[in-house]
């Protein structure tokens, strides 16, 4: 016959093991819930400024269109920095694993220059263009998403020029023309066409 104190000891140990298992299971779920998704956004200096609502035009490969997405991001008072933060927020969406329009990892907007009257120059890093998926619509969605997001949130932008690594480039990845200036009104027309598409 097993001594009573031994039975009690075994029962306590089993209860402790069960309690520990339940605790570990609960903690595991909580960690999975709070674990941030891998953020491959480039390192940027911290931005100070109040949170402001912005409108992002996000490309969607599934529908081949741009959809409007609201967001709230900290925006500095400087117009140029605001523009850079806007596109960084947009790129944050594209660099996420669940992105509807994936861009190459480490894609980055190096700088944006606002030149009056009405010109914005977007300087992308080389990876952005070198590893971008090729295709007329693929490339056009990327370019128009950048331009439309900028124009929708920074008043007064009429024309946009896109550089890669500070230099002019013939096209983004073999199709979308980067040698010319983009007319914001023409981009607007494309966005309307794309959104109207089935």
């Amino acid at each position: 016959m097993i001594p009573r104190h031994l039975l009690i000891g075994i029962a306590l140990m089993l209860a402790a093991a069960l309690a520990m298992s339940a605790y570990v299971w609960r903690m595991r779920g909580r960690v999975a819930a709070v674990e941030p998704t891998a953020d491959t956004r480039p390192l940027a200096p911290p931005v100070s400024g109040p949170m402001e609502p912005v409108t992002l035009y996000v490309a969607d490969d599934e529908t081949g269109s741009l959809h409007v997405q609201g967001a709230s991001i900290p925006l500095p008072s400087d117009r140029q920095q605001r523009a850079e933060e806007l596109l960084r927020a947009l790129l944050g969406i594209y660099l996420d694993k669940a992105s509807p329009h994936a861009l190459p990892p480490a894609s980055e907007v190096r700088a944006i220059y606002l030149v009056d009257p009405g010109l914005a120059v977007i300087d992308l890093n080389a990876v952005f263009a070198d590893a971008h998926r090729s295709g007329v619509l693929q490339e056009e969605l990327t370019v128009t998403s950048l331009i439309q997001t900028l124009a929708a949130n920074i008043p007064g932008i009429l024309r946009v020029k896109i550089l890669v690594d500070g230099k002019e480039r013939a096209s983004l990845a073999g199709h979308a023309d980067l040698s010319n200036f983009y007319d914001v009104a023409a981009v607007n027309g494309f966005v309307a066409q794309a959104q109207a598409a089935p």
Partner: protein
Amino acid sequence: MTSAVQIGPPRYALRAVPGYLPIVLILLVLPRHLPAGPAAEEKRLSVYAAAADYSLAVSERNGRDYVGLLELLEPLGPVSARSDGLHWRLRFKALEMEFIQAKSQAKVGRQEIDLGAPFVLENGRGLVPLTSLNPLLPHFVAGPLNFNEAARRLFLGNVGTHFTAQLSHGTPPRLVMNFTAPVNPTIATEPGRLRMVFHREPVVAPSTPTLTFNDTAIPSATFAESNGLAEITVTSSVSLMASFGNDGRTITISAVPQQTMAAQPKREAEQIPAATLPPSGTGPALPPAPGSTAVPATPAGQRGYFAVVDASHGGEDRGVALTGQLAEKDVTLAMARRLHLELEARGVPSLVLRDSDANLTLDQRATLANATHAALYIGLHAASDGSGVRLYTAMLPAGGDNNGPFVAWDAAQSRFVPLSVAAASGVASELERKQIPVRVLTAPLRPLNNITAAALAVELAPPPGSAPSQLNSPVYQQLIAATLANGVAAMRDKLGAPR
């Protein structure tokens, strides 16, 4: 005077230097600063097998040619390698091999093989001499093996593509070359000859390397192979052009008719006399860079083209990688040929702007298209995403304002946008009628904005619910080409006659 000459040690030292020494020094130093000659061509080994055709870099060690064995075997089956000190062990399928750094003997299974030169192990990468492939490869590959070491072309199995060449003595004479498998060579013309270079195709030599035809216009064709490539050179006393048929199995070479010279790439067009430049018109037939391309006009009384069909990309520019094997440039070329035939069948005269694996710059494409004074330009593209067909008209850039009779090159399309939209709409209606998914969009896609006629780009996507490999399906391509041709033929009256 004399005292001035003798003052100071430097002058004294200079006198001690022999007079010829500066010249010797200059001769020693000068070659380092002279511009280098053309870089030596990279050595390549081409491998043709049933599993894949591929090309590998050949490196030189101690005056001998070497190739990476792992890279050579990788496309042929499962292979792995590991290095252990001076030993390099490789496993291909179930066969084990062992090589030792700087040793000419290797163990393949239980057999000792003489490599003919020492094995080289560099950073874990095993290099074997090319001379060893003949004794080594029969252990890996079943079937016949044919290795032309001088030309660095390796045939594994019965994979060779044979060809025949037959000259029909007509006016003009035509040389018809039939191949046992589809080919897609790079074609270039030079004064007195047309060269076809086969980069990937296992084209093998005919019974005699030089074929003679007893004709003054096309007297002979010569087959040669070197550095992993095969080349057929057709000699001629007239300008030649090549056209493809029979799904790439037939190449017909004939004299260039005057009105098809525009289809030749720049290096050929540059040889066309300046007298053939088109007459100046109100539109910008040429890009801002002067004299980049010379193209013929369409003389009065000769056939005018209604449509110009432009297969995008080509040559080194492969476009979108639609699948591991299928490149956009190949789909667009096949589609261009089909569309051309379908248009001609409907009585719509058309010109294929790129009818070989050559590449044209966007300015050249626009220049050539504008010079034909056709009523419609159709640029062809392909993509793996989405389904059906996307039609694009030009999204004109900002700032390209036309000023009086002077038309900005980047906005040359502006006057023709309504026609382009009408053409796209007509073609879209025809596609919808055939229940092919279609979208009409604007796009910042050159050279649409440089074309002085109705211009649209067609992006072909896979059929609904199908894989991108279906873009290469002859049935699908034929359906789209026929539908596009129907759409163009229906719009013929609205777009007007060739200008």
